[in-house]
Every structure is written in structure tokens, then in C-alpha cells.
């Protein structure tokens, strides 16, 4: 399709926070959990859940802990170093980036109403981003159509992202068609 092209995915999400799940093992002595959590908040992370399983010790007598937190991607390495230097073992790191996504269709003067700004408003939330965009422009002055993939770290965040897109679009006179 000659009049359709794919916009490059914007890279502003590189600075955005990502959702990370991490399994670590602590020595079974008092105060270890606090020492494991402190570096996360020191690095600006946001702890979402902590699963501390004292009754499920590993064969070597350590206590497994599963953490889920949001952190800027660039700081992950620093966090791991810090935890290791505290004597903890990092067993597994799962990066859970955007888990939920949806397609929406836009109709209107999409490019002329600053598509970059529209995308930035989603991406700047940190919890959602525009993962892809196909644009179809029939000609100057005519309304163009686009399909856009919105992704977010969870279902409610995805709903919030759609809300942001809808209010941005309303401002710019663009129609948003969302899935049932």
C-alpha cells in the first residue's frame, strides 16, 4: 500500500519506568528484607508487591523473596550490584514491560494536529506507550486515518491510557474508535 507507512516507534520509553519482577534469596537473619527493599526505593523505584516466604527455605537455608517493582530501566544494573554487595543472591530477573495492549483507530487531521505530541502524551505516563502506528493519508486537506497500538503495564493502566488519548483527540478534533 503506497500511501501507508509505518511510523518508527518513538524511543522516549527508554527513560520510562518498567515493571520488573525479581526473585532474590536472603540470609535468614533479622533485618534482611528491609535491606533488600531499601536500594529499590533509593534508586527511585516503586515497590508493587513483596512475597516473603520464610517457611519455604532453600536447601542452603536461605529465604526466597519475590519482588515486583517499577524502576527506570537504566538503573536495573545498579540495583543488582547493590543487592549483591549486601550479600543477597539475585536468582531471576523478569522484565515485564507492557503486558496489555489494544488497537484503536483514529480519523481526522492526525499529522497536522501534531502526532508526535499525541504519542508523547501517552508515552510520558510511564505506564503506557504507543507501540505502533499505521497511517493512511488520502491527500492534503483530507482526513487521514490511523491505527495505533496502545500498550500498558496492566488493564487499568491501559484504560487510563485510552482516556488520555480520547481527551487529547477531543482537543484536536480527532475521532477515536476503540474496541468493544
Amino acid at each position, binding site marked *: 500500500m503506497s500511501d501507508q507507512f509505518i511510523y518508527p516507534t518513538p524511543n522516549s520509553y527508554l527513560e520510562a519506568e518498567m515493571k520488573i519482577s525479581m526473585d532474590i534469596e536472603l540470609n535468614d537473619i533479622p533485618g534482611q528484607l528491609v535491606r533488600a527493599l531499601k536500594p529499590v526505593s533509593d534508586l527511585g523505584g516503586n515497590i508493587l508487591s513483596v512475597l516473603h516466604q520464610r517457611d519455604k527455605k532453600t536447601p542452603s537455608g536461605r529465604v526466597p523473596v519475590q519482588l515486583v517493582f517499577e524502576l527506570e530501566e537504566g538503573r536495573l544494573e545498579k540495583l543488582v550490584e547493590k543487592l549483591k554487595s549486601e550479600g543477597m543472591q539475585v536468582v531471576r530477573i523478569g522484565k515485564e514491560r507492557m503486558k496489555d495492549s489494544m488497537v484503536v*483507530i483514529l480519523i481526522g487531521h492526525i499529522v497536522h494536529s501534531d502526532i508526535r505530541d499525541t504519542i508523547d502524551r501517552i508515552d510520558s505516563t510511564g505506564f503506557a506507550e504507543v507501540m505502533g502506528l*499505521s497511517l493512511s493519508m488520502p491527500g492534503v486537506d483530507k482526513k*487521514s*486515518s*490511523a*491505527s495505533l497500538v496502545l500498550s500498558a503495564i496492566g488493564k487499568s493502566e491501559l484504560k487510563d491510557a485510552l482516556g488520555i488519548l480520547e481527551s487529547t483527540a477531543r482537543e484536536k478534533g480527532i475521532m477515536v*474508535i*476503540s474496541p*468493544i
Partner: protein
Amino acid sequence: METDDRTVRLTIVGFGHVGGGVAEVVMRKHHAIKERYGLDLRIVGIADIKGVVTNERGLSESEITKFRLGDESVMAEGISTRDMIKELDHELMVEATPTNVIDGEPGLTHIITALESDRHVVTSNKGPLALQYRRLMELAGRRGKMLRFEATVGGAMPLISLIRNNLAGNGIISIKGILNGTCNYILTRMAEENLPYEHVLREAQEIGIAESDPTKDVEGIDTAVKLVILANTVFDMDATYRDVKVRGITDITPDALKLAHDAGYTIKLIGEVDTTGRLEVAPRLVPIRDPLDVSGTLNVATIKTDLAGDITVIGKGAGPIEAASAILSDIIGIYDTGQSQTKHLQ
């Protein structure tokens, strides 16, 4: 079969396609209805802009035909529509004048007059219900009369009675669907043929699917009015047409349909009402092969229930005989209180 036939005298107010369709099916099914339900349906009066025709013993087919053709020899002189509703002895009025969403007239006055004169009312007119639902239901309740309106939503698709009768006991969580055949036809053709909106609209007008002034359909007004009726009857809201957030289909482009298709969707004009108070008509993405993905002029609705799960009904939404079918089932429903629910006419 049954000996104690009950005579039900009907009047029809508004004798366009729908009113004419009602007269036709009442005549055509007269014998079968008498056999099955013991109901002797007689049309004793018809009124519309042309005038009024009455016959206390029941109008003959030739009288009805003459009235339709505007033959003045059958017209009752000096009797207005309201006079007929008030003075002529009858049990049930069928109100089939066109919908007016501004003030609901003249249907609103007809319905109020009929209820105040102790007539049951069956209507296909959406305006009065979308504007004054509670007032009309309260009036009917005070008078001990029935006000039925299956034909207002989804034509022959048995939506309201399905929820009221067959899904009794279920909590209804949401209803969403395509409630306007004209919009569905236009979007279907645009998607299939990659044609612009204006072109397909003209085509729909040429074959009689869209009206010469298509505003009510394509701007989503008709869908919104039907949604309000569902909101009031099923969700017990006291909503009017003005409470609905409405967007129509006039801005939809073939490119948008193509992009939607590439992503596994099609675009449909969807009306949605739910327990949270959502009341919205908008073009939405419907997954291809979803139960709501029906084509042409078909209507469809998915009812989300707490016990029975999702139930989807598909049917012809428009057309005089389809509307007449819904009206006839309302008429029978008023007199047939359950014992012959499984009976069907041949």
C-alpha cells in the same frame, strides 16, 4: 378449538408502512390467532393525516383499502384522531405515527389520550418513550392498562420480551449492539467495497435503505433513542434521549475500515448501556467474527447477564412487516398471560 373467543377491538393511529403492515398481518393471521389464542382481533378504526375511518363491527378489507387510497367515501366526517381514540369503543390502540425526538408529538398525545380513555397501547413510536418513559408507564400503571413497545427496538428482534420473560431472574449487566440497519448497511458496504461514505449513502438512498434525509440514522440519533428505551425498561433508568453520548458514522473513512481490518476488526455503530450508567452510541471496533459482527441491514444485540452469560440476538431490524410482527406479538402478549407461550402461528 376454544369456544369462548374474546373480541379485541383495535384502532390503528398512523397508517404509513408500519400501520398498514399491522392491518395486513391482523387480517392475514386473523383465523390463526382465533384458533390458537381465542382472540378475535377486529380493527374498528384507523386514523392518520388523511382522516378517520371507523366501523364498530370491524373494518372490511375493502374499507381499509379505500382508506389507504384516500377515498373520501369511507372517511368519517367531523371526527378527529383524538375523538376516535376517546369516543370509539375499543380495547387497544396501536400507535404507529413517525418518531419525533424533539417533543414526541403527535404520538405522545395519542398515547396519553388512549391510556386516559382506558385503552391498552402498543406502539412502534420511539419518541414518546425516549422522552417521557416514566410518565407514560406511571399513567398506564394508574389506569391498570398495558403499554407495550417491542417494535421500537430492533424491529422483529425480540429483545425486550426476551429479557423480560425468558431471562427473568437474571441480572442484566450490559447490552450492546447494532440497532440501526441503515448504518450497518453503509458500514458493511464501505468495508466490502472500499468505497467512500457519500457514495454508499447515495446507493442506500437509491435502494430505499436510507431516507432522503438520513440524519436520524447516520448521526446515531435513532440508535440513541432505542438505547434510551432499553436503559429505561431494562436498567430502570429515568433517561431521555438527551442523556446519551452520541457519535454517528459520517466521518468513517474506507481507510479506517481497511486499517481496522488489517488489525482483525471491523467498525460498527454500537449502542451500549450498562449498570454503571454508561449510555453511549459510537463507532467501535468489533473483532471480525465476533457475534456482533453481522452484515447488511441486520441488527444484533449481546445481552450480558449474571447467570446465563452472554446471549446474542440477531434479526431484521427494519421493515413494515417486521415491525408489524413485533406489534402483533405485543398485542397477543397483553391478552395471552403465559398459558400459550410455546404456541406459534403457522
